[in-house]
């Protein structure tokens, strides 16, 4: 199958996993491996002045030959903070890729699309490959693309909600109009949500809580891998048309019964 290409990055897996909410690093890595992901998103935070020296740093844990690290700007509530975070991530040696999110408020955790568009414009000029988290508004998605986003990442549902794809038509409209890759980010609660998203034609799915907070995260990671494959293949295969009326699967001819 065609790999996923975002700018010059190429991924065989179309699943991107988060690194938050896991019990520990071992579980996290086991989930990543089970999911087949080749790209994981991480946040930036202050080092803990007291304890950092004793801790395993995330960068000591991640096999970067296997997993591309996609730094994100989670926790930023305005464009400036997102710019600072992006530049720090690059300084950390993570390259030019960035999951840009500018959150509007703590209550909804929904994106501030206006600020995201502004930050995208700046970061694109600075050479970043901006993967822009956005709501499911096709107009915002197009504006992000015009501002220079390398990929647009509409939400399926609010972050951490697990409610799935609340407005599939909007996602389909975004896909139909986009010239850059479209990734569903946020809202995925279970495997079928991934399949639904991929069947809408999105190029990839990013998820975190759906795996990390499953009863058995590693098993769910395997489920997600298959669901992603299933949805992609079904999209490429082209589904049967829906019919309001029933239609028999077996021939009428040759019936020997009443």
């Amino acid at each position: 199958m065609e790999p996923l290409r975002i700018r010059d990055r190429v991924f065989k897996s179309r699943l991107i996993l988060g690194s938050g909410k896991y019990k520990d690093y071992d579980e996290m890595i086991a989930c990543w491996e089970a999911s087949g992901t080749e790209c994981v998103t991480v946040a930036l935070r202050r080092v803990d002045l007291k304890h950092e020296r004793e801790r395993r740093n995330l960068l000591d844990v991640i096999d970067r030959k296997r997993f591309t690290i996609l730094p994100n700007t989670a926790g930023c509530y305005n464009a400036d903070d997102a710019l600072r975070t992006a530049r720090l991530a690059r300084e950390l040696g993570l390259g030019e890729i960035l999951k840009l999110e500018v959150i509007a408020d703590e209550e909804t955790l929904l994106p501030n699309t206006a600020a995201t568009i502004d930050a995208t414009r700046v970061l694109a000029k600075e050479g970043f490959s901006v993967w822009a988290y956005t709501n499911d508004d096709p107009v915002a998605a197009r504006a992000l693309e015009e501002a220079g986003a390398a990929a647009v990442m509409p939400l399926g549902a609010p972050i951490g909600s697990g409610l799935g794809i609340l407005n599939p038509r909007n996602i389909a409209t975004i896909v139909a109009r986009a010239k850059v890759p479209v990734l569903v980010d946020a809202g995925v609660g279970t495997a079928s949500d991934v399949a639904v998203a991929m069947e809408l034609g999105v190029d990839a799915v990013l998820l975190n809580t759906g795996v990390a907070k499953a009863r058995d995260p590693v098993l769910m990671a395997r489920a997600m891998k298959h669901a992603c494959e299933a949805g992609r293949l079904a999209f490429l295969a082209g589904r049967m048309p829906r019919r309001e009326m029933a239609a028999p699967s077996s021939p009428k001819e040759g019936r020997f019964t009443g």
Partner: protein
Amino acid sequence: MRGGSGGPLRVVLNGCETDVLGGATIGQLVDRVVKDRSRVAVERNREIVPRALYDTTDVSPGDVIEVVTLVGGG
């Protein structure tokens, strides 16, 4: 000028008021909190301090310094 024997000066490091020796560099500050410089990035007064400049960048009184690293997040 670096390495001088100045008295203590107060900066805000990762949100905490912290006293450092006068003449301290960013590099010294970083080494105090992490084992491996490659695991962090540093911002001084909202400007990136490139790693190559850690040892030649002095800390000044009132500096707001952020030493950040990666953590798990979605």
